[in-house]
């Protein structure tokens, strides 16, 4: 409790109540380390944004956090449970604690919008069909798509698919919701709508949100805490304000979207002329 009080005075916010702890997480594909020793905490009830350029290992990190991809080494704790040690059946209890909004919604194309949202309820609860229907309506209302229940995923737009995906992710009232690139492929208005939804769901359902994105506008709009990755390392971590003021040129280049700088525009190593002429 003393520790908690200390943190209140430091951050001016609630005590850090950590829900997910990541320690020395390493993932290698062959000799290449996509994650090279990540260690960070995710606070309960807050929105944590994980940022980084394309190919920096954001998606890989997300896949490891949800137990879809085995880790090379390191630990991921949900409260005090290390999920890297769990088998598939044991992992199921953790899986029920989170929902995921996938980059393109990942709706099941053979089912209607309503059945997509109902699926986790039908498979994991013993609720009566009437109650399930009611819950589906409630979840769809939350994302503003109640009248679209009977349409097939192919009949709705990309932004709508994401919102249905979100309704499905929160169907079982999870404690944690993961968002994989929530604004990818959306126009600025729809993207803002999705950001609003993320904030609304985080506050009304009291969930912990973990957002993976490279959209700076939306990242700064929704984040309580930010983690910035580059080539398998955490290069900056803190509140949006701290990130903005980070003197690290790589962080500044990323925030301001400059094409050349600490991260060079030209990624090739050898001399252009000698490559063209075929001499080494």
């Amino acid at each position, binding site marked *: 409790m003393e520790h908690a009080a200390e943190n209140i005075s430091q951050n001016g916010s609630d005590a850090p109540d950590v829900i997910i702890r990541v320690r020395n997480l390493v993932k290698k594909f062959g000799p290449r380390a996509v994650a090279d020793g990540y260690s960070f905490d995710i606070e309960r009830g807050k929105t944590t944004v994980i940022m980084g350029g394309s190919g920096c290992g954001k998606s890989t990190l997300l*896949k490891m956090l*949800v137990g*879809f991809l085995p880790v090379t080494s390191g630990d991921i704790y949900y409260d005090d449970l290390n999920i890297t040690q769990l088998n598939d059946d044991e992992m199921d209890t953790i*899986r029920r604690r989170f929902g995921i909004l*996938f980059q393109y919604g*990942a*709706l099941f194309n053979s089912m209607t919008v309503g059945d997509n949202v109902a699926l986790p309820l039908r*498979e*994991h609860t013993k609720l009566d069909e009437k109650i399930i229907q009611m819950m589906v309506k409630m979840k769809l209302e939350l994302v503003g798509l109640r009248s679209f229940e009977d349409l097939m995923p192919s009949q709705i737009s990309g932004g709508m698919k994401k919102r249905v995906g979100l309704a499905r992710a929160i169907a079982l009232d999870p404690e944690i919701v993961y968002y994989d690139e929530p604004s990818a492929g959306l126009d600025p208005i729809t993207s803002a709508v999705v950001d609003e939804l993320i904030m609304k769901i985080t506050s009304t359902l009291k969930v912990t949100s973990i957002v993976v994105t490279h959209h700076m506008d939306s990242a700064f709009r929704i984040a309580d805490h930010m983690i910035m990755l580059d080539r398998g390392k955490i290069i900056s971590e803190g509140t949006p304000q701290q990130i903005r003021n980070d003197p690290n040129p790589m962080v500044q280049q990323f925030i301001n979207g400059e094409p050349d700088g600490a991260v060079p525009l030209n990624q090739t190593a050898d001399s252009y002329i000698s490559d063209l002429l075929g001499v080494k």
Partner: protein
Amino acid sequence: MSTAHQSIWVRLGKPAAYTGKLTILFLQVLRWIFIEPFRSRKGIRRIATVDHMVETGIRTMPTLFLIMFLVGLILAMQTANQLKQFGTTEFVPGLVGVAIVKEFGPLLTAIIVAARVGAAITAELGTMVVSEEIMALETMALRPVQFLVVPRFIAMLICVPALTIMADVVGMAGGFFLGITNLNILPIEYINNSLNYTDFSDVIEGFAKSLAFGGVVSIISCHEGLSVEGGAEGVGAATTKSVVSSILFIILTDLMFTIVFY
């Protein structure tokens, strides 16, 4: 010398590893059919199974029946041509009947199902992998094998033998058509002749084969679909591989059955 040796082992290793993967998927399917429904609440998805039976069974019928009728007709013409030289065209019904029930019926049915349904299964599951639907299933604590593979496996195991029996009848009808129009065999004579030469054991052999073929096609097409990597290109490559491997494994299974029943 040693490199030649190595390359043989490497070449043998690949199909062995592939067969191993198929066996693992097959065992998982058996687990979700015979063990898990009694151990956990996760049973067999009946509605999905019926949907797949419609797709595998009923929708395959038109193509299959047309092909089988024509094959029966061709088979009768070819054998009649040969037998005419000996003046023994009355053996045509028997030859056509045995060839169709023991070999052509099961084999062609399986190949057509592999090309039509197997390819579609691989493409569908592959697309689900690419669009993260499989990941969505797993992270919702649902198992792709239980959810997607088992209904398709059961549908094929029921439909392929059923289709084969119907294909046999249609194929024999092709021979029958030639017999009564061209070979001056009386309809009743043709039917009697066919039945005389076709033993019940031949029907059993064809049935057993078709059951195995159904299993082979469904396991291969599901395995290929679930192991897609990359985007649309990966789905295309997997679909091709699915059909080619299915046909190869069908022929190998056929060979094994033929050796056993020889």
